[in-house]
C-alpha cells in the first residue's frame, strides 16, 4: 500500500538564502516570463508591503523588543491558507486585499459598507506595540498600526439592544486555498471564520482595528487588509481579513467554539491558571527565545482589562 506523503519541505524552503534575498530582483528580471502560481513562486510574488504612516502611541506599548519581522510573517496560524505554520506565507499571494469593503451592520443606527480606503482615513493611525499570545503556547511582540475599534463603533451608533460584536472573515476558496474541499478533508473548520467579542470588550481602548504592522500595510498572511487585535486574548480571537462587523444581541458562536467547545471558549482570555484541556497554559515560548517564560494573567494587560471580568468565574467562562 502506498503511503501518501506530504513533501517534507516546501521547495521554497530549500532555496539558498542569497537567492532568496534576491528574489525580487529575479522576479523583476523575469517579468517578461509568465510564471505560473506554483508553490515555489507564490511566496516570491508577494509584492513588497507599502509603508503605512502612523504615530507611535506613547501609552500603548510594551518594552519587550519586537519579534523579528521575518518570524512574524513566516510563522502564522491562518487556516484559510492552510494548517501548517508556513502555509500562510507560501500561499499569501492568492489573497487580493484590494479592492476591499467592510460591511458594518446589525443593531446600529448607521450601518454602512466602508471601502477600505475610506475606513483607513476615518481616524488617525497609531502604532502600538502589543504582546501576542497564541493558545498553542508561543508568543510574539508586534508593533501594530491601526485605530481603536471603539472609534468606528461609536461612529455607527450601536442601539441599546447590541450586546455583542461579530466579526466575519472573507470566504472565498479561490483566494483562500485552505477553504477548498478535497478528498482528504477529513477535518476542517467551518467557513467563513467567525469571531466575536462582548460589546464592552470591543469598545475597550486596547482593542485595535488594525491595518498594518512594522510600519507597513498588513502582509496578507497576517490578516490583510484589516483585522482586529485583542491583545489580552489568545490570538485566534483576533479575526483577520474582516469583511463584516455585525452588532447582535445573542452571543455569537465562534468558529473554534463550534470546532471544539470544551477547548476554545467564547472568552479565551489569556490565563496561566486555566489550562487548555490538553496542555498547560502556565508558560509560553517567546519566538526568538530559547527558554519558556511564565505566561502573564490577561497576557500582562490585567490592570487594563481585569475589571471587565469582575465577578466572573474564569474557569467556567474560559
Amino acid at each position: 500500500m502506498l503511503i501518501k506523503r506530504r513533501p517534507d519541505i516546501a521547495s521554497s524552503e530549500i532555496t539558498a538564502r542569497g537567492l532568496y534575498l534576491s528574489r525580487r530582483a529575479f522576479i523583476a528580471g523575469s517579468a517578461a516570463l509568465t510564471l505560473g502560481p506554483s508553490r515555489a513562486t507564490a511566496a516570491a510574488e508577494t509584492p513588497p508591503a507599502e509603508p503605512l504612516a502612523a504615530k507611535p502611541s506613547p501609552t500603548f506599548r510594551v518594552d519587550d523588543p519586537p519579534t523579528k519581522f521575518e518570524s512574524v510573517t513566516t510563522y502564522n496560524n491562518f487556516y484559510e491558507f492552510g494548517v501548517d505554520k508556513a502555509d500562510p506565507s507560501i500561499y499569501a499571494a492568492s489573497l487580493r486585499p484590494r479592492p476591499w469593503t467592510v460591511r458594518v451592520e446589525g443593531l446600529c443606527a448607521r450601518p454602512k459598507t466602508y471601502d477600505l480606503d475610506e475606513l483607513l482615513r476615518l481616524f488617525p493611525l497609531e502604532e502600538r506595540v502589543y504582546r501576542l499570545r497564541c493558545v498553542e503556547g508561543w508568543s510574539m511582540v508586534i508593533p501594530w498600526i491601526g485605530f481603536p475599534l471603539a472609534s468606528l463603533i461609536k461612529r455607527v451608533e450601536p442601539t441599546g439592544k447590541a450586546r455583542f460584536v461579530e466579526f466575519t472573515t472573507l470566504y472565498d476558496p479561490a483566494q483562500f486555498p485552505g477553504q477548498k474541499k478535497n478528498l482528504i478533508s477529513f477535518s476542517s473548520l467551518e467557513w467563513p471564520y467567525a469571531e466575536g467579542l462582548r460589546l464592552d470588550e470591543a469598545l475597550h481602548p486596547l482593542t485595535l482595528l488594525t491595518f498594518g504592522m512594522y510600519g507597513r500595510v498588513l502582509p496578507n498572511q497576517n490578516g490583510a487588509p484589516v483585522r482586529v487585535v485583542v491583545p489580552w486574548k489568545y490570538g485566534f480571537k483576533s479575526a483577520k481579513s474582516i469583511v463584516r462587523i455585525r452588532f447582535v444581541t445573542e452571543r455569537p458562536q465562534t468558529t473554534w467554539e463550534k470546532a471544539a467547545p470544551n477547548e476554545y471558549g467564547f472568552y479565551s482570555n489569556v490565563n496561566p491558571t486555566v489550562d487548555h484541556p490538553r496542555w498547560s497554559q502556565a508558560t509560553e515560548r517567546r519566538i526568538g527565545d530559547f527558554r519558556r517564560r511564565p505566561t502573564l494573567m490577561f497576557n500582562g494587560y490585567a490592570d487594563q482589562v481585569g475589571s471587565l471580568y469582575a465577578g466572573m468565574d474564569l474557569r467556567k467562562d474560559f
Partner: protein
Amino acid sequence: MSRSARVALKSVVWAACLLPLLMLLLKFWADDLGANPISYATNVLGDTTLRILLASLTLTPLRLLFGISWQMSLRRLLGLFAFSYAVLHFTVWVVVDQIFNWPGMLADIRKRPYITVGMLALTLLVPLAATSTTRMVKRLGGLNWRRLHRLVYVAGVAAILHFSWLAKKGRNDPYLYATILAALLGVRGWHRVARALGKRRVVALGAPSTQKRVAGAP
C-alpha cells in the same frame, strides 16, 4: 533475492530514513529551522517516527495481500529507525524543550493524555529494539519473539493517538495516519479471520489442512 539486490534495497532504505535527519541537521547549521526551531525539530522527528513506523507495519500486509516477501528483510531496519527517531523526538523534548525539568515532565506524563500515550509508545518500543538482534531472536525462540513483537501494534496505536490528541482541529494528517494504520491492522485481522474460517471449513470436510503457515512474524 540476490545479495546485491538486497544490499541495494537496504541502501535505499537507509538513505530514505536518514534523509529527514540530514535535512534537519542541515537546516540547523544554516540557522533555517524557522521562527520556532524547537517546535519544528520536535514535529519533524515525531512525524518521521510515525511514517517509518507505519512503513514498517506495511511489510506484512504486503506479503499477505500479494504474496511477496522480499520486503520482509526490511523489518528490523525500519523498526530500529522508527525507534531511533522516537528516541530523538523524546530527547529534544527532555533536553531542549523541557531542559531536564523532571517534575514538570512527570506531571505532564501523568496529566496530559497525549504525553501519556506518547511515553507508552516509546516505552513499548524499547523491548522490541532490545530484542532485535539475531541472537536475541534465537534466545527467545521464534514463537516468544513473535508474541513479544506484537507489541508494535499497541505502540503504533499509541503513537497515532499521541499525534491525534495533540493536533488541533482542522488538521487532516492525524486522520490520514489513523486511516492507514487501521487499514494495515485491518489486513492482518481479516487475514486471521479468513484463516480461522478456512480451517474450520477444512476440518468440517475432514480433510487435512492445506494452510501453510508462513514463517516470519506478526
